[in-house]
């Protein structure tokens, strides 16, 4: 389990405790554990001397600062126009079938979360998905499933 107090401490050393440090600190926590729990946000609020509502309000504004528990691997499939024209629906269907969850859900073993995202900037190489920080362009349903399979075995 990630030691959130330590992550916050390390981030404060770099970014300080002013308001502008809020996002980098939240990002540092998400980097380690993929989401922000209520307790995490309260801890950050205490360190920065903000109300926890302020922290939650900021976090919930940003898609990448998840406030719901996420799997170890967060899969984000781009759902906008170019990827749609290139066949993202089939990719999502294949992933849903393979992971036995719907888009927006997390597998029971907490290994994968399947999400859709708005434009990832890979429009000429769609369909594309991100698995945590890694980009996988030019997907086919089969290729997408193979990539997931590979992560399952990691």
């Amino acid at each position, binding site marked *: 389990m990630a030691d959130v107090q330590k992550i916050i401490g390390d981030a404060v050393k770099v970014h300080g405790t002013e308001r502008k440090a809020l996002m980098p600190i939240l990002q540092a926590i998400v980097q380690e554990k993929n989401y922000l729990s209520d307790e995490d946000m309260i801890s950050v609020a205490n360190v920065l001397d903000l109300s926890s509502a302020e922290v939650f309000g*900021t976090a919930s*504004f*940003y*898609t990448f600062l998840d406030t719901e528990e996420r799997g170890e691997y967060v899969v984000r499939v781009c759902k906008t*126009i170019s990827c*749609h024209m290139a066949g993202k629906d089939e990719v999502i269907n294949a992933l849903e079938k393979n992971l036995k969850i719907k888009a927006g859900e997390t597998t029971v073993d907490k290994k994968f979360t399947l999400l859709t995202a*708005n*434009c990832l900037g890979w429009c000429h*190489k769609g369909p594309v998905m991100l698995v945590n920080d890694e980009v996988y*362009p030019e997907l086919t349903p089969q290729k997408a499933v193979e990539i997931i399979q590979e992560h399952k075995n990691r």
Partner: protein
Amino acid sequence: METTKVIVGLGSCGIAAGGNKVYNKIKEMKELENIDFILDKTSCVGMCFREPLVEIIDETGAYLYGDIDEKKAIEIIDQHVQKLTPVKEYIVHSDLYETRDDNFFKGQVKIALRDCGFINPENLDEYEARNGYVALKNIAEKGISQEDIIQNVLDSGLRGRGGGGFPTGLKWRFALNSEADEKYVICNADEGDPGAFMDRSLLEGDPHAVIEGMIIAAFAIGATGGVIYCRAEYPLAIDRLNIALEQARKAGYLGSDILGITGFNLDIYVKEGAGAFVCGEETALMASVEGKRGMPNKRPPFPAEAGLWGKPTNINNVETFANIPWIIVNGPDAYAAYGTEKSKGTKVFALTGKIKNGGLVEVPMGITIREVIFNLGGGIQDDKRFKAVQLGGPSGGCIPEHLIDTPIDYDSVNATGAIMGSGGMVVMDETTCMVDMARFFLDFTQKESCGKCTFCRIGTKRMLEILTRICNAEGEEGDIEKLEELAYHIKDASLCGLGQTAPNPVLTTIRYFRDEYEAHIRDKKCPAKSCKKLLTYEVIPEMCTGCTVCAKNCPVDTIRGARKELHFIEQDKCTHCGVCFSKCKFDAIRVY
């Protein structure tokens, strides 16, 4: 004899296409067989449809190889580097040969992208070797004044490349004239328009050009601090920016008394976004840098008066900044020599959608859409028919076939109802449904609306619901008028550009493709055969063999017929899922 250079394209798209494997293979060959050549890497030259790319430069010239894998890599090293015979069939571009991709380069003028694909973006020396930081050094050595720099930028005619198109020099002058103890310069690298990736390629391919542009802007307006706001979806760009910033600090381009200019102190840092499109809007962006929700604020005051931390701030787009050093070195007239009377210089476009050569091009303003799509872009995939092109992403609009000879400049594009925008061109063919396309963009803006303005928050949702109904065969008489009315109010009553432009894709598709909307609503038909709910599936008696595959796969069990006998679809239960069509091996299902 000069040593041969072998350069592998390792931008994100090169890496994703397998560029690293090619690089490692060549490295392994070089070491194992002790072959004498210089191995280097570069970023994308825009030819993304031929990645991975490998360039070989020898005494005779430069040869760009495309679609290279490990096997072909062995072959070209062996043949070209060792035996000095270029492997013609893999060459996609060279001054010495004609190739089928030559058209992609013809007509391009590279100013913003001048170094992309030519230098190793992680090596400052290579940037400097191509006039890098010469503009900044000229300013320091010749004592060019703030006012002169701004006049140069004004004379060049450069307008903001982030979408607004505001004259850059004018914006700088406002910021210079605002008195304050602290001022900021911000680079907007939050590129989020669906269909756009110009800024990503630029940041990955030539980060120093953007940084140098920012340093010059900072000097010109008297800024004391700089921020690059880069979206989190671009990890490689963020890495390369940080590497470049560290190099610039070490080389004295950032720091105190920069290049001996007394009192010119500046540092720049990268602020990573967190997945919110609206943060590309300048006031929202600054709120986000300050650690708040990225909600837009009222203007005035404009950033030039009160921006980041309430201090005068100049904010420009990535591409805008990348043009600056070139303009200072080559002079404003050289820049203004390209383009049209009111739109000077060049613009980078990202070609995506149903186009053959998906990638990046930089062209002089005033070139026609036809030239870009058919000459540089190679035309439509599978030689289908061109239908329309979406310019300006979710804030823009579509330009139909009969306007394909529109010159690309701010005024001509605006006259069509689209906008120049940041440079995304999504090309559509006869199989793209325009109602569905409009729905897509609205789904995007509706989700990305920050929620501050009621019309944007709820109005876009209502529009999306109507469009979804139309695509699902539930359109009603009067829907088009309702869309138009909502669009009018959303444009009128939204604070920022997101809401003000959100209805544009709907309005332009209604303007140019009203008959398609009507076919959906009245006849319950989708002329592009794309909206599944509006399609009818039928068995073609002459083709059906009675194999039962369609009946077995039908999820609602609505296909009748015994084995080896003619099947038929009971229409009332059909959900139009299309499974029978895709499963039939005998082309016996007709769709209309």
